């Protein structure tokens, strides 16, 4: 009877704990389950996830239930005598075969879903090429000729010591992707340096971006909205700081956005042929530098000793002959983390960043690098 009293006491304790947990989970921040998806395949994944989860719960109830019963009633302190049975081929066969059947039950829907998940090519309407670069994403709308780099937003960088109350902290970018709803979008993934992984939970897309490989995946977004994700494969120092933002909009809005991007690119191309003033270049260059260079070379140009060289007082930067400085930024340095920025930035941005490096961050070479010089160096 002591046992029953003890049982009742634990029952009360467990009820208390569960209701506490429930009260906690009622608040939005305590998200317990997988993010629900806005794509048809994502909904299938969610269903499969719940199926396997409930099977596990069922097995768990049986196994842990038997264990708990045994712990309560087959104990020496309640005077239970040990029986000595220790073998039964029938039982062993049963608990080999039954789990096998359950597994087949899981494997059948999983196979169907996997085959569908892997078919990115059939009926794809828009192709978006995604390039992972330490630590940003470059997006290219292959058929539309639109291309841009997407970085962590400055609003997140500014509050990194204390982000309290910053909405979408670490999940905001400077240039989000815009995609139309109800179209099959095929994503192509590759990387310029190390392996990254592009993951947006609500689109149920997670695929590695690997140098030398092109992987693909797909999504049909059924609801308009803003969907956020992150890099999911350790890719170095700022792995945690390369988010993804997808704006899913109506088809007409998407068309409008594409046209705007195309016009912007044309304007930039014509601006690149003009002569730029030192002031304009340095001002623009600071922004470009902080978004693209500061992760390695530091916001003040100090670098990280032993890992990333400093910009301040760098002999390459201080050299009056600009050739070496232009070359390393435009073409990168093979075998190191220094990327070839001709693949990421336009002529104006590279010229501005170079001018800023030569005349800011404690350097004062006194010359400008013109976009036309960069165009010639490509």
């Amino acid at each position, binding site marked *: 009877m002591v046992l029953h009293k003890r049982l009742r006491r634990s029952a009360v304790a467990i009820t208390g704990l569960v209701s506490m947990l429930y009260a906690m989970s009622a608040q939005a*921040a*305590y998200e317990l*389950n*997988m*993010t629900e998806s806005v794509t048809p395949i994502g909904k299938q994944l969610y269903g*499969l*996830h719940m199926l396997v989860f409930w099977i596990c719960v069922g097995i*768990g109830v049986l*196994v842990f239930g*038997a264990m708990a019963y*045994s*712990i309560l009633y*087959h*104990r*020496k302190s309640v005077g239970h005598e*040990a029986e000595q*049975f*220790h*073998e*039964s081929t029938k*039982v062993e066969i049963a*608990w*080999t075969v039954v*789990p096998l059947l359950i*597994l087949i039950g899981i*494997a059948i829907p*999983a*196979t169907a879903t*996997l085959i569908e*998940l892997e078919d990115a090519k059939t009926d794809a309407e828009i192709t978006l090429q995604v390039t992972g670069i330490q630590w940003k994403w470059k997006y290219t709308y292959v058929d539309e000729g639109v291309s841009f780099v997407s970085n962590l937003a400055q609003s997140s960088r500014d509050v*990194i010591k*204390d*982000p*309290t109350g910053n909405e979408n*902290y*670490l*999940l905001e970018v400077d240039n989000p992707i815009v995609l139309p709803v109800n179209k099959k979008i095929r994503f192509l993934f590759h990387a310029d*340096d*190390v*392996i990254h*992984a592009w*993951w947006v*939970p609500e689109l149920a897309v*997670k695929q*590695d971006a*690997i*140098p*030398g*490989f092109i992987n693909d995946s797909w999504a049909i977004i059924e609801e308009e909205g803003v969907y956020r994700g*992150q*890099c999911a494969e*350790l*890719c*170095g*120092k700022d*792995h945690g700081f390369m988010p993804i933002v997808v704006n899913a909009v109506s088809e007409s809005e998407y068309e409008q956005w594409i046209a705007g991007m195309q016009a912007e690119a044309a304007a930039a191309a014509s601006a690149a042929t003009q002569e730029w003033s030192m002031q304009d270049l340095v001002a623009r260059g600071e922004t470009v530098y902080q978004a693209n260079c500061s992760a390695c070379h530091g916001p003040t140009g100090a670098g990280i*000793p*032993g*890992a990333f060289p400093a910009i301040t007082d760098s002999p390459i930067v201080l050299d009056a002959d600009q050739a070496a400085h232009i070359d390393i930024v435009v073409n990168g340095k093979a075998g190191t*983390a220094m990327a070839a920025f001709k693949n990421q930035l336009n002529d104006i941005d590279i010229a501005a960043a170079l001018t800023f490096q030569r005349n800011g961050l404690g350097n004062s070479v006194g010359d400008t690098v013109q976009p036309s010089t960069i165009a010639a160096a490509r």
Partner: protein
Amino acid sequence: MSTEIAHETAHDEHHDHGPAKGLMRWVTTTNHKDIGTLYLWLSFIMLLYGGSMAMIIRLELFQPGLQWVEPHFFNQMTTMHGLVMVFGAIMPAFVGLANWLIPMMIGAPDMALPRMNNWSFWILPFAFGMLACTTFMEGGAPAFGWTFYAPLSTTFAPASTDFFIFAVHLMGISSVMGSINIIATILNMRAPGMTLMKMPLFVWTWLITAYLLIAVMPVLAGAVTMMLTDRHFGTSFFDAAGGGDPVMFQHIFWFFGHPEVYIMILPAFGVISAIIPTFARKPLFGYSSMVYASASIAILSFMVWAHHMFTTGMPVAGELYFMYATILISVPTGVKVFNWVTTMWKGSMTFETPMLFALGFIVMFTIGGFSGLMLGVAPVDTQYHDTYFVVAHFHYVLVTGALYSIIAAFYYWVPKWTGHMYDERLGKIHFWWSTIAVNVLFFPQHFVGLAGMPRRIPDYALQFAEFNQISSIGGFAFGLAQVFFLYIVIKTIRGGEKATDRVWEGATGLEFEQLPSPPPYHSFNEPPPVK
């Protein structure tokens, strides 16, 4: 019985030379008990070292924003924590248990190759010393995760990576030598009558584990050697720009890495299979099916490696195969759990500390097994992969699995080793404290993983803040519990209630039935009778 043993011991001691005195005893020892002790202490030191890095990780993750460490240092911590825990804490602890127990369990006087045994231990402090030094080198310690995927670990890695490569080579040599020794001992030194199918399961699981180690450690050595030549000698094994293949690195790594996880759990199965029958006072249910299940798990473990790579863009056929093979492993693993539960069924159980840790193992390892099954389902794994859900999964199988079995083994056999009972009250406090803390630590990580938090990030979005805070609190409590464990260990070695030769009412096996507590420095100079 016990007077008989005592008499024999007194007789033995007459012409028995004990250990040498002083420090040189430990440096030059070829005694399996001494070497077992050395391994166990090394692994405890590594547990505290790896644990303190985990504390730094949990401290930084206590709240969103970067408060304590820089991202580059954070990555060094996650990398070194993983390497130290896998290669420094879990693996040497099992080798230590093997050294202490296998000769006593099979009625052998010592390991088959005692000098090599000494060498395989003494390589390790140098390997880990070298690995630990990298933290203080320019550019910092390795920061590419314990899985060291190329090209992050080749072209983009700090200079200290070469020291890491050399350390891994040394660990591999040590493991292979240790394994050869264990296989040679088990196959050649069993007392007459100790047939293979009479061996305790701990011996069986270690025999299988040793074969796994010999098969896969050279693969790891190959992987790090290719890294080395990529870094310094102009090869491009893993460099796409030179015609190499970064994905091949992952195939090679996981061909080592997946058997490696069974290397860390099979001996644990052996420990649990010893403890449950003792405290249920009932023989292990389905001994032979346990042996076959262990062997099946070992064989399957070579055929499932690419389930760590479902997002790398494998062909559909490959993904289907690896999914089927992976979820198949849950069958023999399930058989083991069912056998343990049936061993308990209609027993006469008592709940001393080793039994508590063993029961904790069964429940929480099974939870880790459930999340493992979920991860094995390839299409959904694309959403779990590289999130905290995975972190929760492998900590459930490695901390509440492997580590719990090691702690259980300590409490179970330490009275035999030292002749002193540990303090039962402190042991129970250790169990409940650890078990509550470890669940507060790792269970919420399932939730943040499912909600979208990637692993290996030093900072996170605000919606993950609450669970990370809870997890950190659990982490600090769990860390402190193991410092408390250190106190229990030292207290038990120094003294305590005298243990009987049998130690536990229901204990069976040569070490309990044929040897006094503590056993003489050289035991079984003559083979014991085996029933």
